[in-house]
């Protein structure tokens, strides 16, 4: 057993500039905007979604990418105005939905990583995002520590 704090650094491409740090919320399911989230609370509502009932408000959202209706950007736009947007977005698959959604969310966003963030980051990890420099620093949550 080791109490050493694991740090992992990922490098990627800036989608939206800025820097921040916070707790990660990770899902392997793509996220649907319109009909998939409640933008006023940032809660995922999609029926069969891994994060159903959980909110990304103030979290570093780590996910494969966007899916579903073209209302995606508008829903995240509303989430920002309602104060329920994610702190940052880290994702793998570039689409127009997510590009526009990230742009109007005004939160730091990155993609095209040298390592798959879904493999490296787990929910509860502490994540520093510096989108302008293209660097993500992950501090792994200690084993046994409550999330």
């Amino acid at each position, binding site marked *: 057993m080791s109490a050493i704090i694991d740090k992992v650094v990922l490098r990627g491409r800036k989608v939206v500039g800025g820097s921040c740090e916070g707790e990660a919320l990770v899902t392997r399911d793509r996220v649907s905007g319109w*009909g998939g989230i409640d933008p006023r609370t940032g809660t995922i509502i999609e*029926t069969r979604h891994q994060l159903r009932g959980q909110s990304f408000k103030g979290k570093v959202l780590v996910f494969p990418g966007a899916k579903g209706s073209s209302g995606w950007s508008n829903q995240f736009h509303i989430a920002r105005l309602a104060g329920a947007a994610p702190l940052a977005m880290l994702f793998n698959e570039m*689409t127009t939905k997510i590009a526009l959604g990230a742009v109007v969310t005004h939160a730091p966003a990155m993609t095209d990583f040298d390592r798959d963030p879904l493999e490296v980051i787990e929910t509860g990890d502490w994540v520093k995002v510096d989108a302008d420099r293209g660097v993500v620093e992950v501090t792994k949550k200690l084993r046994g520590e409550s999330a």
Partner: protein
Amino acid sequence: MKLNDVERAMLDGAEGPAIQRAMDLLLRYGEALGAERLVDTKNVCGTIGATTPFMRQYAEKPGGMDAVFSEFNLDSPTVVHVPKVRAFATHLQQGMDPDYAELQGITPEVVTLFKKGNAWSAGLGVQLMNTCTPYQVGNVPVKGEHCAWMESSAVIYCNSVLGARTNTEGRESTGAAMITGKIPYWGYHCDENRYGTHLVEVEIDVETTADWGLLGYYVGEIVQDRIPVLNGIRHVPNLPRLKHFGAAASSSGGVEMYHLVGITPEAPTLERAFGPKKPVATLRYGKAERRKAYELVNATAKDREIQYVMLGCPHYTIEQIWEAAKLLEGKHLHPDVSLWIFAPRVIKSLADQNGYTKIIEDAGGEIMTDTCSAMAKAIPKGTKVAAFDSMKQAHYLPAMMGIQGWFGTTAECIDAAVSGRFNGGLQ
């Protein structure tokens, strides 16, 4: 991203603050995508209304609809005066049917706001088609035409069935495109991104509109946002079938383009559908897969007693209204059930002329326009269980409204509306 001299001047403010804000957004968006340039578009399909509760607050601000457009269509915190649109722009479905506002639970104040917004939009030169199916009421792009459309079910139809070129745009990018006539040249605008990625061997007959929905839902679930090439289709479909197929595939996954070998314009042969690429995977669609799609979409359904039947997602065609009218003629809805059918306003006008509206209303149903249950977040009072003939609606509405939803054929849905009980099942 490289801008030409004209675009650079627009960004520098030579054509006024709204164009400047629009170019600023297109630049940020294009760079987020990794696009190298913009492309001219004369065909935009988007939304600029403000009838949802959240947006109404903006419409009531001093800037009125300019404030709504600035924030929600240009991502501009500063309110700018919006000029007339440059591109042919068609409006998507909105938040209500003003003729059925009371039934949809909408107050007269909001109806007034809706009408004011519509008049403002029309003044800009935006076509008030108010439908998710612009391609059935006068916006039918030709093969190769660069478009900037939103609405996932319209995008997939535009790319796949018409061979026109659009990405899934959003409210902000279509707003910017309307007034600038520009959109990032990326994704489906480029030849190399339009080839198939997955081969789907269709091993069973797919013929009815319900069958096409099940196929679309299954394929979308598997390929997500890639490009399926469907081989082995034995019955040439029609508009309602492909409308349903595309809506289903773009709901369960994020499919924006598909090819039907020998049918759709960019897939005269299997080889042409894949172009220089090889399929990354091959999947089969048979009885088991069809059943799987049916079970997935009916995940929320348990109780058979229903209170609501919703038809017209995406908006019904006149052929579908005709079919519904035939099924309803001389019958009466169960007293506990409401039937709302959604269609474009001009299609309802045709239904009026053909006498279908009267048949449907005599049976106790309604034809509504300009919106749908999901957009208006409107369902009949007391609805606990609903039935739909749309995989898309069965996918979304239960989660949005906290109800159970059955997917069935149009005939099963009409039967449920008349009997009060959903007796459908996988045939």
